[in-house]
């Protein structure tokens, strides 16, 4: 029994780091621009399909598709931003409708190009399992992307807190006009952050393809998962994304082990609601002051 629980917690931790990868791009855009990109899951999925094409058509390793995925997905993400800037009133609310529409278009585009079939990686290495310390099992892909997930969370945290553009982005997010008066061009910083969100979605998409199965309708459930983790983390907190994601991952994994895998979704939603009930601004969210 102990072994089972230990294995379950371990798998949950790995799943959490993977969830963090899925959530990070959405959290970045939501946390800094108050825009909820409802097409985020589709961007992740798009990268997954690019990895599929690279593998099935050109015989490449899924990870080798990363540069192509980054270019296409980041570009798509920037196009979404450019469309969002056409919104003149109530950007926060109207962006929901716009990105929802884009999500539907992307889903159908994916369906048209890649058909409705379920795809998964055929590269054996990713799905091989390794045994850690005699008792804990994991697939190579889970370990690989858990490590990448933690590194990427660290990199994004560094970028936002220490780099000039990260600081500029936070400046724009705190006060747009004041940031402009200090010489910051909000458009450049926002384009850049959408491009970074696209880059993050690309990594997440390849993690998705090499560890799970993909199908065109998967996008919105990825978006919902990313949204839950972002809100659970607290807006604007990058380390919070990792911790929130791990919490969800472990809770789901333990539910499946100790109870039933059918209840996974219910338990993670309950966890989400309970956290918000007790801490309305999320685990690490700051209460924002105005004026």
């Amino acid at each position, binding site marked *: 029994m102990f072994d089972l629980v230990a294995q379950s917690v371990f798998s949950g931790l790995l799943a959490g780091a993977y969830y963090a990868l899925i959530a990070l791009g959405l959290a970045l855009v939501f946390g800094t621009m108050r825009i909820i990109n409802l097409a985020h899951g589709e961007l992740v999925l798009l990268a997954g399909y690019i990895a599929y094409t690279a593998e099935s058509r050109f015989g490449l390793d899924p990870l080798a598709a990363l540069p192509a995925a980054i270019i296409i997905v980041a570009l798509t993400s920037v196009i979404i931003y450019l469309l969002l800037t056409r919104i003149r009133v109530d950007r926060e609310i109207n962006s929901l409708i716009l990105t929802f529409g884009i999500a539907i278009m992307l889903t159908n585009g994916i369906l048209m190009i890649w058909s409705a079939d379920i795809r998964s990686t055929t590269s054996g290495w990713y799905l091989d399992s390794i045994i850690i310390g005699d008792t804990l099992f994991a697939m190579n892909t889970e370990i690989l992307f858990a490590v990448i997930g933690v590194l990427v969370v660290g990199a994004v945290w560094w970028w936002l807190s220490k780099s000039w553009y990260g600081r500029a982005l936070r400046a724009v997010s705190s006060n747009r006009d004041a940031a402009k008066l*200090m*010489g*910051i*061009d909000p458009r450049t910083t926002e384009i850049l952050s959408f491009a970074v969100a696209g880059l993050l979605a690309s990594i997440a998409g390849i993690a998705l393809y090499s560890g799970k199965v993909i199908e065109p309708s998967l996008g919105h459930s990825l978006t919902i998962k990313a949204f839950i983790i972002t809100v659970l983390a607290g807006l604007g907190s990058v380390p919070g994304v990792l911790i929130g994601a791990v919490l969800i991952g472990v809770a789901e994994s333990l539910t499946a082990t100790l109870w039933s895998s059918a209840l996974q979704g219910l338990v993670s939603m309950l966890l989400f609601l309970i956290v918000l009930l007790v801490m309305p601004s999320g685990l690490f969210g700051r209460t924002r002051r105005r004026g």
Partner: protein
Amino acid sequence: MLLTLDHVTVAFGGLVAVSDVSFSVSEHEVLGLVGPNGAGKTTLFNAISGLVRPSKGKMTFCGHDLTGIPIHKRARIGIGRAFQVPQPMHELTVRENLIVAQHFGTGHSNPGKIDEILDLTRLGHKANRDAASSLALTEQKALEVGKALATNPRMLMLDEVLAGLETNGKRAFMQTLDDARQRFGVALLMVEHDIETISNTCQRVLVLNFGKLIADGSPEEVFRNPEVIRSYTGGETA
């Protein structure tokens, strides 16, 4: 000439907020801008810093025509502004507020000047604190001026920065501004309600009323001008 306004008009639909205003500011000058509420002072400031676009007229700063220059580039040619309600960037520390302003406002970093500004604004002891939660009103106002100074301005626009301060606070703040002027050689263009402060600090005063410039001169002559007195007392004879 640092700043020149040539027949500038700002209208919002049918409402003319600033009407045919011309004046200029020279290097190192301390210039006051006064007028009753609604006279168009803040609109004029917004036009100079680029938040609103004049419908007529021409503005030049250090030889640059301001018409086609977006707000974020105006900071780089030397226009600094501090707001009446402090606008700190909440998610950054006090020092970060300054270094971000310096980096983007000037295109380079100079930590020595940041320390000098922290010293000048007496914010050194709170440099690494969060700008959102740890500053009292006076300190927020000092940071507001500090941020503007960090962009290395040749002219600093101050929009009622003294509002809400008590007498000693005002005096201390004016001292800070005077230090800033001497150390960094900036011209000051200040909107202020407090006539006494304006009289004591400004070499020249502009008076706006209903969007029109009705007086331009030394404090002594401006505040003796009957039209200025009328505009302040609402038509009664003083």
